[in-house]
């Protein structure tokens, strides 16, 4: 089945992963800007990273017939440095018209601190000013519940933002209902230990239905599995679910959400991929 991974960090994966994803049926990915495993020292470090996301990765992906889209921001971990964050936020508009840039993300909270909240609000302002969709990272483990509620408070507090253009990622059993009930999109991250297994994601799909719900691998440089979405497809099939339900979660929903972005130009499989291979 053709599928889309709406959250994966290919800058930290090897080219063989692109080949594996392509063989598994992946036709498109979206890559949010995130923490590189170390704190970058300057705004120029982020400028180079944004060039990697907008110029280098799309070519690497295209060589395997995968369309690459991305999101730009300074992530929650480095947002602890407010002055650096402000420099990066000021630079982001340079890139917003680059092909494949879908919006602002993954912004969010990490340890739910004051500085993280300040920088999160400034990103929301940037998104509102430039009419950009938003992709949101919610914190890990014991900080997730508190942080997700704080994020929803801040989103609800900005009347300029449209909920149907915002994806709240890494939801789990204790945060998914609040996100969907308030009208946002929700993403389930299939991580081996710290987030959600394919089985638990399938449970949440059965419980909440497919509307505004997606799944992603969030594959990155840490323990993660870039082919986690095919695992979810397999689990849903094993339980006897309709192909149409599975396709909605792993293919149609990402497309519907990405259509909120003016830079989303998607070619379904079979429609000229060769032109873009450099």
């Amino acid at each position: 089945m053709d599928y889309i991974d709406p959250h994966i960090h290919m800058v930290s994966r090897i080219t063989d992963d692109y080949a594996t994803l392509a063989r598994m049926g992946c036709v498109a990915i979206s890559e949010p800007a995130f923490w590189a495993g170390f704190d970058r020292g300057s705004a120029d470090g982020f400028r180079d990273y944004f060039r990697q996301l907008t110029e280098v990765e799309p070519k690497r992906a295209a060589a395997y017939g995968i369309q690459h889209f991305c999101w730009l921001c300074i992530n929650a971990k480095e947002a602890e440095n407010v002055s650096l964050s402000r420099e990066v936020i000021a630079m982001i508009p340079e890139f917003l018209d680059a092909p494949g840039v879908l919006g602002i993300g993954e912004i969010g909270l990490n340890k739910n601190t004051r500085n993280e909240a300040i920088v999160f609000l400034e990103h929301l302002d940037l998104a509102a000013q430039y009419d950009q969709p938003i992709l949101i990272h919610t914190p890990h483990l014991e900080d997730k519940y508190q942080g997700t509620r704080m994020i929803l408070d801040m989103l609800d507090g900005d009347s300029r933002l449209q909920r149907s253009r915002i994806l709240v990622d890494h939801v789990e059993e204790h945060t998914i209902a609040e996100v969907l009930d308030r009208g946002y999109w929700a993403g389930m991250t299939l991580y081996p230990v710290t987030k959600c297994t394919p089985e638990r994601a399938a449970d949440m799909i059965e419980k909440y239905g497919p509307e505004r719900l997606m799944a992603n691998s969030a594959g990155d440089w840490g323990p993660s599995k870039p082919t986690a979405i095919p695992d979810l497809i397999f689990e849903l099939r094993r339980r006897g679910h309709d192909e149409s339900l599975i396709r909605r979660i792993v293919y149609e929903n990402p497309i519907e959400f990405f259509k909120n972005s003016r830079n989303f130009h998607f070619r379904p499989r079979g429609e000229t991929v060769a032109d873009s291979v450099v």
Partner: protein
Amino acid sequence: MPQAHQILDDQFLQVRAKLIEVAAVLDRIDRVAATELTTADLESHPKRVALEQAIGLLLQDAAPGGRAEALQKLFSRPYDQRWRDSLSV
């Protein structure tokens, strides 16, 4: 969708294995603790207490959101509606 008894049959060995794993970890902690001099605070260690509460929750009738949601909340920091005041944001 498979029927409930089929899910039980299908998942029995997996859940059995996970429960034995939990039992073995708790045994391991106790076994090593017995060889240490300073074990006074182990019983009240917040992680130990949280694990024991979680095990208790599994045996209660499912809460409205289900057992998984109840455990997730047990392992979470509390949310305070007035967080903006305390952080002055």
